[in-house]
Structure formats: structure tokens, C-alpha cells
């Protein structure tokens, strides 16, 4: 049995979160809350669990409820209880858990909880200090409320997708589930702020986080471009990456690529970095307007390439840091796992799982490094729960059910 009451001082310690999330955004939200000490009880469907258990990647590419890397990544530090919410007894168990909880997070479509007679007003009636965080595609009202979505569709509508990719091609989405994870991260922040409020005044809250508005509010170009349109009427495009002298993605000696972005104040430093002191001191080249002509961009780009191609990504990274030019190597996941900085900081964590054996996981989003009493230790991470692994433990310890009670519920398919 996993003991959650470890003597590690974490910010959300003592707070209980009922986790009615599935797929990606909701579980990322509760992962963050669990990472910082909340006791997250993940409610899963009997027999099948969170659909993310059936989503790739799988150990040895072989599907199985305890073989999904996506699920294992998203659900560390949580406990799993299986419940049939369509059964009255299952529903009552959930309501009993909610009575003692600080927060409930869900990412069903907006009609589901009201359909189970668990709309916010009903939950508030049984627990007036409860924070309910609802994540949905388009929010809890409005004409698109019941529309369907996907990461691609929603990021394309709300986010800066029109500005991502090649000007010659269709707009391009960011990798994998990154849009959903951003929604989850925002929902965790929203939950924490609401918990702060409910802790002060004893009143609960219903937080409405939507994919569409999260993406519409992204500081990554979107909000600036929106306001620029409001200010000056410009519709934004996909600008070419190499839109100023020295900005681009360049081939390196070791077969990879290196990405530099040059701001006006660091252009001369970049010219010196690549051995072009003459250009660095040339008044014409120091004029940002003059050097932004396409021919000048190409001319300087050729000089950058001839310098880059003779150096490894590691050498170039050290040089850009020294010159205070903005840039970084295009790394693969394999490169990242052996990056000297992340290794020295012990960012990655190894976890054992009964199906897979030890695997490497990314570490904490942020770290409490220092308290007034001294250095804080990095908390350990607990592997994702097996389906229903903690059903007996929680029904017994928290709700006082006997082994016989639980067995009877199991026979009826309630747990």
C-alpha cells in the first residue's frame, strides 16, 4: 500500500481533490495538484478506467490498461478508485467522498455532471466550501457549448496556429498533446487560486476553464496579434523564420540543427561571435533597417552557416551563451535525456512499474528550493496507480466500509 502521509512539507498537503478527469487536460491539471501535495483520488470507470489507459505509447507497442506511457506520465502521485457512477450506490460513494474534499476537477462535456444530478449547485449544497473546476472545449455556456473538439481543432481556433509553420504550407500544430497540457496547467492554477479564496472565506467556487479561451489568451503571439489587429487592423500571417539577419535554424557539424534569434541589441555580438568583426563595426550593417533587406539576410545567413557547419551543437551553445545571443540546439528526446544541465539538476526521475520495470519520467514543473528554515528536499514521485488499486483502501479507511461491504459492491459491479 502506498502511504501518502509522507513527512514531506508540500504546499497543498492536507488538501483532498476528487479527480473526475479523463484523457489529457484534466489529468494534467490534477497531476500538478498531486505533485505539490494534494491527495488526489482518481475516480475511474469499472473495468476500463480512464480512456488514456488505452492511448499510445504502450510498452513494447502492445496495448493494455497498464501499459500506456501517456497514462503513466499523467497520473503519477494519484490514487485510483473504480466506481460505477450510473449506479445509485456508486453515486452515493462519490458524494460521500466529495463531502470531505477541498476540490473536484472534471473535464466531461458540460452536460454530463448535470445529467448525473451533480451540477455545481447540488455539490455546493453538500459541501459549501468545495472548489469545482470544470474544463471543457468551449466553456459552460454559449452557442458552441456542445460542439466537439480535438487538440488540433481547438488550438487552431483559439491559438496562434495560423502563425505557426511555413508561409508556403498549411498552418502547423505544436507536438502531441501540448495544447491539452497547457489547458491542464491553466486549470491547476485556476484551482489553486480558488482554493486560496475558499480557504479565506469558507465559500466554494465553480471555475470554468475552456480550451478556446485558454488558447485565445496565450501570450505566445496570440494576444499580441489580436491587440495589434485591434490597434492597427493587421491580419497576421506565418512569417518566414529567417525574417532578420542572423535569425534562423542552421545545420551543424554533428548533423543536427541550431536555432538562433537575433534581437537588434545583440546583432553586433552575433557578428563578432561568428568572426565577422568587420561587419560588427560597419555603420551600414549596424542599421537594423538596412540589414533587414532580403539580400542582406541571405548574405549574413551564408556567413552564419559557414561558421555553424564547422562546430558541434554543444560548441555553438557555449558560444551563444558567451556572446549573449539568443539560441539553442534542436535536440531530440534522446539528446534531452543526456543533457548535462538537466542531469546535473536531477530533473528526470526513475519510477518502477509492475508492467514496465524502471522508466525515466520528467520531473517537477517547479521546485520549492528554500524555506526560511533551510534547503527543501525534492519530493519523491509515486508511479501511476493500477486501475482501482486504492478502491479498498479508500472505501475502508475513509468511508468505513468493511471488507464484506466492499466485496458485495464488487460483485454488483459498483466498484
Amino acid at each position, binding site marked *: 500500500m502506498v502511504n501518502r502521509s509522507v513527512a514531506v512539507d*508540500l*504546499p497543498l498537503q*492536507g488538501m483532498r481533490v476528487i479527480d473526475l478527469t479523463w484523457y489529457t487536460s484534466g489529468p494534467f491539471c490534477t497531476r*500538478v495538484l498531486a505533485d505539490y501535495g494534494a491527495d488526489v483520488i482518481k475516480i475511474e470507470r469499472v473495468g476500463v478506467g480512464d480512456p488514456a489507459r488505452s492511448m*499510445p*505509447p504502450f*510498452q513494447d507497442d502492445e496495448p493494455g490498461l497498464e501499459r500506456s*506511457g*501517456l497514462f*503513466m*506520465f499523467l497520473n503519477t502521485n494519484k490514487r485510483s478508485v473504480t466506481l460505477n457512477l450510473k449506479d445509485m450506490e456508486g453515486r452515493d460513494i462519490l458524494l460521500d467522498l466529495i463531502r470531505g474534499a477541498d476540490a473536484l476537477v472534471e473535464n466531461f462535456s458540460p452536460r454530463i455532471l448535470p445529467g448525473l444530478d451533480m451540477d455545481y449547485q447540488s455539490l455546493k449544497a453538500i459541501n459549501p466550501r468545495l472548489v469545482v473546476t470544470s474544463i471543457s472545449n468551449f466553456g459552460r455556456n454559449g452557442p458552441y457549448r456542445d*460542439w466537439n473538439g480535438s487538440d488540433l*481543432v481547438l488550438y*487552431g481556433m483559439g491559438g496562434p*496556429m*495560423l502563425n505557426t*509553420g511555413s*508561409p508556403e504550407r498549411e498552418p*502547423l500544430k*505544436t507536438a502531441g498533446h*501540448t495544447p491539452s497540457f497547457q489547458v491542464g496547467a491553466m486549470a491547476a492554477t*485556476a484551482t*489553486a*487560486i*480558488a*482554493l486560496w479564496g475558499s480557504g479565506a472565506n469558507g465559500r466554494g*467556487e465553480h471555475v*470554468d476553464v475552456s480550451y478556446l479561451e485558454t488558447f485565445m489568451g*496565450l*501570450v*505566445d*503571439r496570440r*494576444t*499580441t*496579434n489580436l*491587440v495589434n*489587429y*485591434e*490597434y*492597427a487592423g*493587421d*491580419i497576421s500571417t506565418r512569417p518566414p523564420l*529567417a525574417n532578420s539577419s542572423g535569425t534562423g*535554424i542552421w545545420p551543424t557539424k554533428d548533423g543536427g*540543427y541550431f*536555432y538562433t534569434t537575433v534581437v537588434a541589441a545583440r546583432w553586433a555580438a552575433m557578428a563578432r561571435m561568428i568572426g565577422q568583426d568587420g561587419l560588427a563595426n560597419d555603420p551600414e550593417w549596424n542599421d*537594423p533597417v538596412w540589414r533587414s533587406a532580403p539580400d542582406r539576410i541571405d548574405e549574413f545567413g551564408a556567413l552564419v552557416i559557414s561558421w555553424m557547419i564547422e562546430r558541434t551543437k554543444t560548441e555553438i551553445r557555449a558560444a551563444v551563451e558567451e556572446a549573449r545571443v*539568443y539560441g*539553442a540546439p534542436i*535536440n531530440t528526446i534522446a539528446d534531452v535525456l543526456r*543533457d548535462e544541465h538537466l542531469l*546535473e*539538476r536531477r530533473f528526470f526521475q526513475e519510477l518502477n512499474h509492475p508492467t514496465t520495470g524502471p*522508466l*525515466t519520467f520528467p520531473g*517537477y514543473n*517547479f521546485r*520549492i*528550493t528554500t*524555506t526560511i528554515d533551510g534547503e527543501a528536499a525534492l519530493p519523491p514521485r509515486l508511479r501511476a496507480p493500477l486501475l482501482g488499486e486504492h478502491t479498498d483502501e479508500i472505501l475502508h479507511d475513509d468511508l468505513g466500509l468493511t471488507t464484506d461491504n466492499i466485496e458485495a459492491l464488487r460483485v454488483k459491479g459498483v466498484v
Partner: protein
Amino acid sequence: MERQATPASPVTSGGLPLDGVRIVDFTVVWAGPFASQILAEWGAEVIRVESTKYFQPSTRGTMAHPPKALIDSGALRGYPDKEPGDRPWNRWAGFSVHSRNKLSMTVDLNTEDGQEALERLIRTSDGLIENNAVASMDRVGVTWERLSKINPELVMVRMPAFGLTGPYRNYRTFGNHMEALVGHYSLFGYAGASPADSGLNIMADPAGGAAGAMAFMAGMLQRRRTGKGVQIEVATADGFANYLGDYVLDYGMNGRLHEYRGNRDSVFAPQGVYPCVGDDRWVSITIGSTDQWKALCGAMNRADLAGDARYQEADGRRRFHDELDAEISAWTSGVDATEVMNSLQGLGVPAGVVMNEADAYGDPHLNARGYWEELEHPEAGTHRYPGVVWKAEETPNRLRRAAPRLGEDNEYVYRDLLRYTDDEYRRLEGLGHIGMDYDPSIP
């Protein structure tokens, strides 16, 4: 902590959860300001600490005094009516959106007077948030060792790109470079193309912003329990590595390094971005089930595709993805993007216009939700801005004030909050600490 009767803030926040929480804000560019934007949105009094003697590029614009030629050529954007005005730093779109609801003070921290003002400010604040290179903060005395002695209840959030320790601690990058370093640029791109074709993507900044605000709240919740301050480190680059967690696991489980696959998905097929009538008009479509596939075929009036045995399951649709993309594109190319979205969504098929700014401001759903909000700014005029990021049923929330002009709240901060006398205030003004203009020598 020394607390006196609280003077009235220029940005009122009664009723919001973070009402009464004061944050000293040293954030720059995007990730840090986004974190403090969220905290200000929910009621914190966020005081930006700025300097008239130093201009941080990409925060209040690319340049303090941008040449009109660069604005006319389109190289520099973001000014109302494409006019930089007398004080361009107060009129720039990027700043005006993430710094709404915040206050601005100016001070030169490279002097003893500046350090005295900083100490007074720390004494009267709950938290501090910053995202600078570690060495830059060390140089102006913004360290936990020092500030926690001045205010032992301080919640201090540090957001250097690579953290407070390790070989890259002083390495400066933007979000796109953080993403390159932690692997993102190896994972999104057009099939078979170079990473340069992926263009610009800077999601590490919003990711860092969400994490920074969360870190601050974690610190506050910890302080509520223990009564003690805490330093929290948000290494924005490390944090973004979490967004690639399933790829890290796939590498560990199967040794797989993914190749670019454009907008296609590992489960759903077909999925893509398809051209519509007009210039740079696109619609995204995801087919998540056989029912949705049949509905799409119905909308395309293609009973032949709906009945084709090869396309009944996602595996088959994935095998013939190129052919299906050609069929879908042939249909969408003749239709308006909004019409494709509305008709497919009416059939339960996930579809959406790849919205440009005009689509977004005119979108019926966002307008019905009251998303856009108007703010009046004394130098930028009256405009509609993206609204509060999420809604709260018990706590209706609106934007409260336009982004502060440089030094706009010096009077409030120095006189009301830090209790400087009139003589002292005028002396600091004379020394260039207090002001509303950048030094003219700054380009």
C-alpha cells in the same frame, strides 16, 4: 512583517480571491509577465518595478524609440494606427495585453537610494516574481538570502529559463529556444521537412506563465499553513519538458524518436488542416470515430467514400491518409471556412476555422460569453482586449485597468506605500529614479 493602514490602491480588487496580496514584479518579455497577469487578474496588487535608465527588449516593445521606417515597413508592429507616439513604450500591443491590471513604478537599483526603495517595498509586500538571468538579479541584490531577512514571510518566485543551479543557470533564451533544447522542435513539423519549415512556436512562454502563477499560489498556500516565506524556482525550460512527457516515455518504452507528421494524429484519422475559399483560409478537421467519418462523407456528398470498405476503421483511413486528404481538400477548397465548421459541427464532427484576428473578434461564441473587454488607456486610446482567461461562477470578474504607463504609479508607491516625504520624492525624481520617460540615449 511591518504592516500599516493600507492606502487605497489605484487598481481596486474588492471581492477577488487575491485581494490584499501585494506582489513585486520584476518580470520581462512574456513568460514572467503572463504569470503576473494571471495573479493580477484575480485581484493581486502587482507592482512592476521598472527603470527609466534601462530598456528590456520585447517587454514594452522591441525598441524604446523605434524608427518610423521600421514601423512603416512592417518590421515593427503593435502600435495603435501604426503610430509610435511620443512614448512608444506606453502604446505597444504586447505590453498592453499582459500588463493590464498592474501598476508601474520606476527606480534605479544600481544606487543606494534605489536599494533603500527596494527594501521598503519588500517589507510591505507578500511576494516577488521575476524571470531574469540569475546573474542579473544577483547584481541588483534580488536574492533569497537578502530579501528573506528583510521579510521572512516573502513568497519569492524565480523563473530563470534554466533554473537557479546547473551549468545553464545564466544562459539567456526565448521560449522557442527552450523548446528546441528540451526536444519540442524535433517533434512538430511537416513530414520529411527541415525544422526551419516549422517556423516560430513559443508555447514555453504560456507554459512558464501558468507554472509561475501556480508556483506563487503554492508558496502562498504553504505560507498560510506555516507562516513562513518560501523561495520557489520555476525553470521554464525544465517545465516545458513535462509537456513532452509521453514522448519521453515512448523513448523509454520503445526506443522511439518520433518523425515529423504534420497535423496528423497517432489515433484519429483522418486529421488535418484543409484549405478553404479565400487567402490563407483553413479549417481543421478531426475524425474520431466511424460515425464521424460517415458524417463527413455525408457533408461532402460522397456516398462512395462512406461505403468504401477500406475506410471503415481508423487503421484503414490512416493507411490511405494522403488520398483522403486530397478528397477532403478538393471539397473544402470550394467552401467558406466558417460554413465548413458550422455544417460539420452540426453533424457532430470536430471542425474549426483556423481563426485569424478578425474571426476571433467577430466570433459569435466568444461574444456571447462576453470574452472581449474594452479598456481606456490615456495614450493608446480605447480598445477591446482579450478578456479574463477563465470564469468563476461565484466571482464574476472583469478587467479593471489598462496597462500602466511607465512610472504611472510612482506617486502611490513612493508616497502612500513606502512613506517617502515630498522632499525625498522630489530628490529621487531629480536623480532619475522617478520618471515617466526613458533616457533619450536609449535606442
